[in-house]
């Protein structure tokens, strides 16, 4: 049967978005989406509505009533809060009528009834939404003559954040952030009523890893951050937008300085990455750049101490050493702390010199072949049907990625299946969380895949595996084999690698990945055997970061000549024959690549300390001395060369491309190898399997040289199940002896019922006894005995 469609015209019209809504704001037609609030539609249309409590990344609560606007209704215009009123087809909104103006002025007047006249001494003055909007939307004077509320001026609610309750306008942004975004509701409105105030529980500080964000989003000067208090006025600050490279999430920031000193980082909203949030470590470690202890000039070892030397003398010595070294005896470790340009130029130099021993990781990540699996972005993970976590505790290692995944799970956009030896920050947001003792993740994956409910879930949508090194006392091959097992069992699954060091993906992609299996461990082994004549540490500190302490010591001691290029005299640099001062974050321009392969820019804001320079300059200059002139004099030259030589990087050479959200670059990767979980030897009398991982605050150089963060490390301890503790027979907090065939250490014991029986959790790189003494590379897993003393 044939029917003739007479209405051909309408069928040719483009299909109308069923969610599109058209409204009128101040006489202009504005397209909006169903469910959107008026204030968001107005923002897009550049019609500014004043507000205090509304924040586009948090739920609307309508606390401050400042966003009142007029909406045409059946009974004439009515006043509504635009941050809580959704748009509707044909809605007529007016934001500037005399009535609206009166209402908004009234709200400002009420908010100021209790607000002190602190502006001249308030950190927020000059960038304060209350100040600004009192000026733009206030009446200019107040009818209130009553005494204002009085509270003790700022009280510390954590080591980092101060609260001045007199200034608080009770907008619920900080408390909402703590609850909704950070998941640490450690501040709450208390004494509700006339004396409502934001407060912590007595003696339980607002010790959230994300506490700095509340300072940034507080619309008044009620919350201030210890590292910035009274340091500058906003109008004295200069700023440039950049990317945080403390970890590999790559949050967007602005770097602010005054008089050539870094004073503050603020989060910038990058939609695919950080949504405006930063973690406290990334936010406050600008202090490290300003540290007194920074290296300023090249140093040469003279006996037990160092003597300052010139760059030309230092580089001359290094080039002579390299020239006279036996071919194949030069090694480069590191590169993950620098920019893409730094890594690229060092890789170029390594290529020219035929250096095969190179590794940007320190045996604390995963093999670079993790990039050969189908790759996922953060957004892809946060909108996948299922996310499988074979990863460290994201809250400790990649904090803002934790925020993103937590948000996606809370909003039911994803279901998380976690395979982990112990509880992590995401466990309570996981759909399923299985405890798999270290060394058993492959078996755990296979069991999960055999479960019909899980199989149905996996088949219901895209699957992303978040893969990283969960346990430094476990061979990385276990994780790789588990990833292989997932990919073998789940069609079209992709991988989001979560290697944590700032630019580790960039460095590995740009040529600092190990060649023919000569990774950091192999390099240090070779060095210990005396086969490394020149070891170049490119911002790497193996003495601190290699999980096998003994190997690190032997490797560094065995190298004939050590060059350290660093910002501080780290533990490893202290063994170097020559130390070159490197320009730090904020002191050099360039680009960086985050864990998903996104390339964004990092910027220079202040003059490099002393005579320090960017790593790429050092590589270029050494190349010149060694007869391998790369012909680069400026960063633009390097970027041009990089764009030409590294497929995928061509697109990053324009400054526009790497702004804000940047671009995701795919670099051809090593061929995929498959992994088999290494066998595990029986435990015998070593009844505890050790789980070693990092916490956000440890002895990382950027942390200990930032006074605000230096004391936040928890210190080392061993945590076991309470019943295990009973068996060990030690009191909580007492010292116990932890030993295995390699060594023995003494450290305090803690108990936690969330640690599975037979597992012992020890944080890495904390002040106190060094767990690395118990770890030897190549050990499949690490088992220990715990004895009370």
């Amino acid at each position, binding site marked *: 049967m044939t029917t003739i469609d007479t209405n051909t015209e309408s069928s040719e019209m483009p299909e109308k978005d069923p969610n599109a809504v058209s409204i009128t704001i101040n006489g202009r037609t504005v397209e909006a989406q169903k469910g959107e609030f008026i204030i968001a539609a107005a923002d897009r249309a550049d019609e500014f509505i004043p507000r205090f409590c509304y924040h586009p990344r948090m739920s609307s609560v309508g606390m401050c009533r400042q966003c009142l606007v007029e909406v045409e209704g059946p009974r004439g215009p009515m006043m509504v809060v635009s941050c809580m009123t959704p748009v509707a087809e044909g809605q007529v909104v007016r934001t500037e009528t005399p009535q609206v103006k009166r209402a908004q002025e009234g709200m400002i007047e009420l908010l100021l009834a209790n607000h002190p006249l602190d502006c001249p001494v308030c950190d927020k003055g000059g960038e304060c939404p209350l100040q600004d909007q009192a000026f733009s939307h206030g009446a200019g004077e107040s009818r209130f003559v009553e005494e204002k509320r009085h509270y003790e001026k700022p009280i510390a609610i954590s080591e980092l954040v101060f609260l001045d309750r007199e200034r608080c306008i009770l907008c619920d942004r900080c408390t909402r952030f703590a609850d909704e975004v950070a998941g640490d*509701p450690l501040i*709450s409105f*208390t004494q*509700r009523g006339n004396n409502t105030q934001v407060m912590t*529980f007595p003696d*339980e500080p607002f010790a959230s890893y994300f506490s700095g964000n509340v300072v940034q989003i507080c619309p008044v000067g009620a919350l201030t951050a210890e590292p910035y208090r009274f340091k500058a006025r906003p109008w004295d600050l200069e700023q440039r937008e950049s990317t945080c490279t403390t970890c590999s999430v790559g949050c967007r920031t602005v770097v602010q300085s005054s008089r050539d000193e870094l004073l503050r980082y603020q989060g910038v909203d990058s939609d695919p990455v950080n949504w405006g949030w930063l973690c406290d470590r990334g936010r406050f470690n600008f202090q490290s750049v300003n540290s007194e202890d920074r290296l300023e000039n090249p140093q040469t070892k003279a006996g037990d101490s160092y003597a300052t030397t010139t760059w030309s003398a230092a580089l001359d010595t290094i080039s002579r050493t390299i020239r006279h070294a036996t071919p194949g005896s030069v090694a480069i470790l590191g590169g993950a702390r620098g920019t893409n340009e730094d890594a690229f130029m060092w890789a170029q130099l390594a290529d020219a010199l035929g250096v095969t021993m190179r590794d940007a990781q320190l045996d604390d990540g995963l093999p670079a072949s993790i990039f050969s699996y189908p790759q996922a972005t953060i957004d892809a993970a946060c909108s996948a049907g299922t996310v499988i976590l074979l990863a460290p505790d994201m809250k400790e290692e990649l904090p803002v990625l934790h925020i993103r995944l937590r948000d996606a799970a809370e909003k039911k956009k994803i279901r998380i299946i976690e395979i982990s030896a112990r509880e992590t920050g995401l466990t309570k947001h996981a759909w399923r969380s299985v405890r798999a003792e270290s060394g058993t993740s492959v078996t755990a994956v296979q069991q999960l895949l055999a479960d019909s409910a899980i199989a149905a879930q996996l088949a219901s949508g895209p699957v992303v595996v978040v893969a990283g090194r969960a346990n430094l006392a476990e061979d990385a091959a276990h994780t790789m084999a588990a990833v292989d097992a997932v990919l073998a069992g789940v069609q079209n699954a992709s991988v989001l690698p979560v290697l944590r060091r700032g630019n580790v993906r960039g460095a590995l992609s740009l040529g600092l990945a190990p060649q023919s299996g000569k990774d950091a461990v192999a390099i240090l082994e070779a060095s210990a055997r005396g086969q490394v004549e020149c070891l170049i540490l490119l911002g790497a500190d193996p003495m601190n970061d290699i999980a096998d302490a003994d190997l690190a010591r032997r490797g560094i001691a065995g190298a004939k000549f050590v060059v350290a290029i660093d910002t501080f005299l780290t533990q490893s640099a202290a063994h170097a024959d020559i130390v070159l001062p490197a320009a730090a974050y904020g002191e050099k321009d360039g680009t960086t690549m985050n864990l998903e392969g996104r390339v964004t820019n990092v910027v220079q804001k202040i003059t490099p300390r002393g005579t320090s320079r960017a790593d790429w300059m050092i590589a270029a200059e050494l190349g010149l001395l060694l007869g391998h002139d790369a012909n680069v004099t400026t960063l633009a030259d390097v970027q041009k060369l990089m764009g030409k030589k590294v497929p995928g990087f061509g697109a990053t050479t324009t400054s526009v491309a790497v702004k804000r959200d940047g671009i995701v670059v795919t670099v051809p990767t090593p061929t995929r190898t498959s992994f088999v979980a290494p066998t595990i030897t029986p435990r015998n009398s070593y009844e505890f399997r050790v789980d070693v991982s990092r916490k956000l605050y440890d002895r990382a150089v950027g942390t200990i040289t930032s006074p605000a963060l230096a004391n936040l490390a928890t210190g080392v301890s061993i945590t076991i199940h309470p019943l295990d503790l009973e068996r060990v027979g030690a009191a909580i907090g007492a010292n116990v002896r932890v030993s295995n065939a390699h060594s023995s250490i003494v450290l305090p014991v803690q108990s936690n019922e969330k640690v599975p029986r037979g597992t012992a959790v020890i944080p890495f790189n904390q002040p106190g006894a060094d767990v690395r003494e118990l770890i030897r590379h190549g050990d499949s897993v690490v088992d220990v005995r715990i004895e009370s003393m």
Partner: protein
Amino acid sequence: MARLTEENVRLAREIIGRYPKARSATIPLLHLAQEQDGYVTNDAMAHIGELVGATSAEVYGTASFYEMFKFEPVGKYLINICGTMSCALMGAEELMHHAESRLGIHMGGTTPDGLFTLEKAECQAACTEAPCLQVNYRYRFRVTSENFDTLIDQLQAGELNSEIPAHGTVAAVRQHIPADRGVGAVAPEDVTEGPAWLDGKAAL
């Protein structure tokens, strides 16, 4: 400072079981804590947080909204004298003065023996019986100086123990709902249809 006793933890779990969401039990558990110690201790708030899955700060935020939860020790008998309109007209002022001199403390204070705390209260909804007061939220009507003294004598002698339990006890008899008698917890988001009697009329 005390966490909930074992017996009270058992009760707490019973109470939590009555609600679709554990957090909804916060207020009843605060009462339980106050009944146990006479006031709500920090340890108890932290314990309640653990039981209902909230942080201590959230429990404190909720608890501190309510006048009737005390965060400092109060006397065994908390005497609230109403000072609002009707009672004021009928001599509340004088009654308060008398109470202060009889007990030797100011309004808001606690006697050194820990027996009595005096507080001024707002209208207790017994205006027809003004002036009135409450001892641990048990009423006394048309209180004169004389029968205030009698009340204090009786309380001191323990004669009213059966009628007026120590501060914190809300109900003289605790209600127990056996689990099998409960209708079962229904989460609000699981309710998708109107009640049966509405019979489809809700479609309007």
